[in-house]
C-alpha cells in the first residue's frame, strides 16, 4: 500500500532563490530585448548585471545550513554555495566584458545573448547543487545548449559558426555518453540519487566491481571529461575557443570548467566514493597527460586564443591532480583554484576582447607586439594574468597551485606533484612569450585599442584585484573554501 501513496514533494523555494532570480532576470532581459526601442545601448547588459548581482547576494546571504530539498534533487551545502559564487563572479565579469564587446560584435547586444548567458549560468549553478544524476544531466544540458548557441552568435563569421557546430556535435555525443553512463549506474544500483548510490555501494561491495557499474563509470568519465577538457577528450577545445566570440570563450573556459568540476567532484566522491582507489590509478595518468599535452602543445601556438585554449586544458590537468589527491584539503584547493582561474582567465580574455576591429579580432600573438608600453595599464594587467597562470607569486595562480600540490603531497602523490611542477615550468615559457611580445618587441603594425568603457575597466580591475588579493592575502578566500568542502553524503 505504501507504493501507491502519493507524496507531495516538499518545495523549498528559498533553497533555489539565486536560481529563481537568474531565471526571472533571463526572461525579463529577453522581453526587454524584444520590446525596447533603443537597440544599441548597454541597457540590457546592465539589467542582466543587476540580476546576477542580486543572485550573488542571495547566495551570500542564504545562510550556512546544509539541507537537501526537492526530495533530494538538490543539495544545498556549502560546496554548492561556493560553486554558485564562482558562477556569479564568472557571469558578472562576462557581462561586463560583453557590454564592451558589443562594439566589436554588435550582434551580441541583444536580449537573446544575455538571456542565453543567464540560462547557462543557471545551469552551472544547478550543476553545483544537483543531488540526483538526472538533475546533473538536466543542468548540464541547460548550460550546454545555451553555450552552443552562444558560441555561434557571430553569424557572419565562419569561424564562429564552425565553433558552434563543432561544440554542439561533440557535446551532443558527450551528453549521450554521460546519459548512457547514468543509465548503467542506475541499472547497477537501482537509484539515481547521488547520496543513495553512495550508500548502496557502501553496503553492497560486490556491486562495486560489477561490469555494469564500471561501464557506467567509464562512460560518465568520458562525458565529464569532455566538459572539463580532459585528455583525450580535449580535441574540441582549441577550435571552439578560437571561433567563439571572445566574451563567450571567457565564459566557457571558466564557468563550464567550474560547473563540470563541481559535478565531477560530487558524483565521484559522494556516489562513487567506494571506487576511488580504482579511479585514482586511471585519473593519475589522465591528469599527467592532460597537463603535459596542454602545456606542450600550447608552446607551438601563435594564436593567443588557441594558446589559452591549450592552457585551459593544462589547468584542467592541475585541477585533476587535486581530484586525484582527494580529501578535504584537495577539494578546498580545487575550489580556490577554480575561483582564481576564473579571475585570471576572464581577465586575460577581457584584454583580448579589447583589441578587436570591426570585422574580426587581433588574436595573433604578434599583434600584441609593443602594446605593453603603448597601453601601460592594459599591459600591466595582462602581465599580472600571465604571471598568475604561470604560477608565479604573489598571485592567485601560485597559491592555487601551491594548495593543489600540497594536497597531492599530503595524499602521497609525490611523483604527480613533481610532474605538476615540471609542467608549470614548461608553461612559464609560453606565458612569458606573451609578455615578451608585449614588452620586448617593437610593434609591427599600428593597432588601436578600443576606447575602454567603464564596464571593461571595472571587469579588468576586479579580475586583477582578485588575482592579487588571492595571491597576497589568500587566507580569507581559503578559509571560505575550506569551509565549503562539506558535501552531503
Amino acid at each position: 500500500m505504501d507504493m501507491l501513496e502519493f507524496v507531495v514533494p516538499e518545495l523549498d523555494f528559498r533553497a533555489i532563490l539565486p536560481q529563481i532570480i537568474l531565471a526571472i532576470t533571463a526572461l525579463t532581459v529577453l522581453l526587454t530585448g524584444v520590446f525596447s526601442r533603443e537597440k544599441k545601448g548597454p541597457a540590457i547588459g546592465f539589467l542582466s548585471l543587476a540580476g546576477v548581482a542580486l543572485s550573488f547576494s542571495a547566495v551570500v546571504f542564504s545562510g550556512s545550513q546544509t539541507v537537501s530539498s526537492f526530495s533530494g534533487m538538490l543539495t544545498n551545502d556549502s560546496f554548492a554555495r561556493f560553486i554558485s559564487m564562482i558562477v556569479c563572479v564568472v557571469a558578472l565579469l562576462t557581462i561586463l566584458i560583453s557590454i564592451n564587446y558589443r562594439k566589436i560584435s554588435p550582434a551580441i547586444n541583444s536580449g537573446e545573448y544575455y538571456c542565453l548567458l543567464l540560462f547557462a549560468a543557471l545551469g552551472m549553478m544547478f550543476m553545483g547543487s544537483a543531488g540526483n544524476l538526472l538533475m546533473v544531466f538536466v543542468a548540464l544540458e541547460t548550460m550546454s545548449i545555451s553555450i552552443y548557441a552562444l558560441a555561434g552568435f557571430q553569424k557572419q563569421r565562419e569561424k564562429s559558426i564552425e565553433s558552434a557546430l563543432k561544440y554542439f556535435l561533440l557535446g551532443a555525443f558527450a551528453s549521450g555518453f554521460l546519459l548512457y553512463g547514468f543509465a548503467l549506474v542506475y541499472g547497477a544500483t537501482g537509484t539515481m540519487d547521488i547520496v543513495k548510490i553512495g550508500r548502496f555501494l557502501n553496503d553492497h561491495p560486490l556491486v562495486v566491481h560489477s561490469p555494469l557499474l564500471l561501464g557506467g563509470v567509464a562512460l560518465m568519465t568520458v562525458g565529464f571529461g569532455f566538459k572539463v577538457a580532459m585528455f583525450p577528450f580535449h580535441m574540441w577545445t582549441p577550435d571552439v575557443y578560437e571561433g567563439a566570440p571572445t566574451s563567450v570563450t571567457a565564459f566557457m573556459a571558466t564557468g563550464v570548467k567550474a560547473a563540470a568540476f563541481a559535478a565531477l567532484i560530487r558524483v565521484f566522491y559522494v556516489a562513487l566514493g567506494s571506487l576511488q582507489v580504482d579511479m585514482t590509478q586511471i585519473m593519475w595518468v589522465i591528469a599527467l597527460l592532460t597537463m603535459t599535452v596542454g602545456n606542450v602543445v600550447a608552446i607551438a601556438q601563435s594564436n593567443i586564443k588557441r594558446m589559452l585554449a591549450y592552457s585551459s586544458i593544462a589547468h584542467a590537468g592541475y585541477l585533476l591532480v587535486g581530484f586525484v589527491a582527494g580529501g578535504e584539503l584537495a577539494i578546498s584547493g580545487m575550489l580556490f583554484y577554480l575561483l582564481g582561474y576564473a579571475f585570471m582567465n576572464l581577465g586575460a580574455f577581457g584584454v583580448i576582447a579589447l583589441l578587436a576591429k570591426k570585422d574580426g579580432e587581433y588574436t595573433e600573438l604578434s599583434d600584441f607586439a609593443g602594446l605593453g608600453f603603448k597601453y601601460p595599464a592594459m599591459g600591466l594587467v595582462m602581465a599580472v594574468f600571465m604571471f598568475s597562470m604561470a604560477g608565479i607569486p604573489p598571485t592567485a595562480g601560485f597559491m592555487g597551485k601551491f594548495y593543489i600540490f600540497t594536497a597531492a603531497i599530503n595524499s602521497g602523490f609525490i611523483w604527480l606533484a613533481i610532474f605538476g611542477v615540471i609542467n608549470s615550468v614548461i608553461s612559464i615559457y609560453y606565458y612569458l612569450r606573451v609578455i615578451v611580445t608585449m614588452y620586448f618587441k617593437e610593434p609591427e603594425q599600428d593597432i588601436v585599442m578600443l576606447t575602454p568603457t567603464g564596464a571593461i575597466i571595472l571587469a579588468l580591475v576586479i579580475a586583477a584585484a582578485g588575482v592579487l588579493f588571492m595571491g597576497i592575502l589568500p587566507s580569507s578566500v581559503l578559509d571560505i573554501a575550506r569551509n565549503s568542502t562539506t558535501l552531503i553524503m
Partner: protein
Amino acid sequence: MNQLDFPIISLVTFFPLVGAITVMLISKERKDALRTAALVVSLIEFIISLPVLIYFKSGTHGMQFVENVPWVKSLGISYFMGIDGISLWIVILTTFLTPVCILSSWNYIQKWVKEYMVCMLLLETAMLGALVSLDLVLFYVFWELMLIPMYMLIGVWGGPRRIYAALKFFLYTAAGSVFMLLAIIFLYYYNHKVTGVYTFNLLELYNLNIPVSVQFWLCVAFFLSFAIKVPMFPLHTWLPDAHVEAPTAGSVILAGVLLKMGTYGFLRFAIPLFPYATHQFTPVIAALSVIGIIYGAMVAMVQPDIKKLVAYSSVSHLGYVMLGIFAFNIQGIEGGLYQMLNHGISTGALFLLVGMLYERRHTRLIKDFGGIAKVMPVFATFFMIITLSSVAVPGTNGFVGEFMILVGAFRSYPVFAVIAVSGAILGAMYMLWMYQRVMFCPLDKPENQKLKDINAREIITLLPLVILVFVMGFFPGLFLRKMDATVEHFLENYNKRYEMYAQQETAEQLEAKIAAVVSERSEAPRLQGGASR
C-alpha cells in the same frame, strides 16, 4: 622580541615598493623627475636600513628585529622576518647598491624610464624580502618575485640577444626553484607527522630529525635551486648570457645581490635543514667549486668581450665563496660571507666601468680599445683600483676574503686549496691582461682618441664603491665582528646535528648487523635440525 619596538624590517622591505608606486604616479614625460624620485627613494631606503646596522647586537646569534604574525593561519604560514649575522651585511649591500645602480643608469636609460625605475625598486623589495624571510613560503614568494623585475630589466632594456637571455634566466631559475617548493611542502608534512604541528617556520623546522634517505632527496632539491642561482659549475650557462645582455645596472644587481641569494640560501636553508646530507655532499660541492674557480678563470681569459670576461670571473669568484662555505670552519664561512660582499662591490663596480666604456664607444670588445688610459686618466685610475680589488691584492677587500677562504679551505681540503690558489693566479692573469690591452697599448684607433673622461655623476657613482674597497681591505674587523656570533653558532649547530645523525646512522647499522647475526644464529639450528632429520 624586537629591540626597536618597531617593525623596521617591514619598513625596510616594503619602502621601495611604496616608492615604486609613487614613481608610477609621475608623468612619464618628466624623465628627470622620475630619475630623481627613484634616486631619492633608494637613498632614503639606504638611510632607513642603517638603524638595522647600528642597533644590531653583535654578541648574540639569534634572529634580531623579529616580526612574526600569522599570514595564512589555516596552513601555518606566517609573516616571519628577522635578521642575523648572515643576512645583515647582504641586506645593507642591497640597499647600498640600489642607489648606485639608479645613479649609474641616469643617462644610459632613455627609453621607458618610468618602467625602468619601477622595476629597480620592485626588485629591491623582492631581494630584501627574500633575505629577511624566515618562513619558507614567504621566502619562496619573494624568491620567485625577484625573477619578474630582473626578467623585465634584461628583456626590455637589454642588448641584442636580450629575449633569449631573459627567457633562459627565467626558466633556469624557475626550474630549479619549483623542486625546492616541493621539498618545502614535503618538509611541512613531515614536520606535521613527527611533531603534529603545521608550520613553515624555518627555525622550528631546523630541529626536525629527518631520516637520512629522505634528507638526501630534499637536500638535492634545495641544492639544485641554490646551485643554479649561485651559479655553480656546470649550471652556470645562463649567467654569461644574462650578464652580457642585461643593462649595466641590471648586471650590477645581478652580480651584486641576486647571485648571493644562492650562497645565502645554502647558509640559511639547505645546510642547517639537512646537515647529514650536506656532509655527504660536501666533497662533491667542494670539487665543483674548485672546478668552477679554475674553469671560470680559464674561460674568462679567452673572452674577447670585456663584459663576458667579467661575467665568467663571477663564476670563478662564486666558486671561492662556495669553497669557503663548504670548508665548514669559521675562517671559511666568514671568508665566504666576506667574499660575497666583496664580489658585490668589486664586480658591481667592474660592470659599472664596463658600462661607462660601452656608453662611449658602443662596443665591449677588447680589441677595439687600447691606450684608453691616455684619454681617460680618471677612469683608468678607478678601473685600476677595482681590478686590483678583484685580483685580491693586499690592502683591498678582495684580499681579506680570498685569504680567509683559502685558510679555511686549507684546514679542510689541502688539495683543493692548492688548486684554488692557482685560480687566484689565473685571476690576476686575466684581469691584468685585460687591463693592459684596454688601457695601455698604443692609442691607435681614431675613435678612441676623442673619448671623454668620466663626468662628475659617474665619479659619484664609483666613489662609494672605491672607498668601500679600501675600508673593507683595511678594517675587516668592522664587518666580521657582526658575523662572528652567528657563524660560530651556525657551525656549532651544524656539527652537533651532524654528530646526532651520524650516531643514529651507526646505531641503525649496528642494529642491522645484530639483526643479521641473530637471524643467522636462529637459522643455523634449524638447518642442523633439518639435516639430522
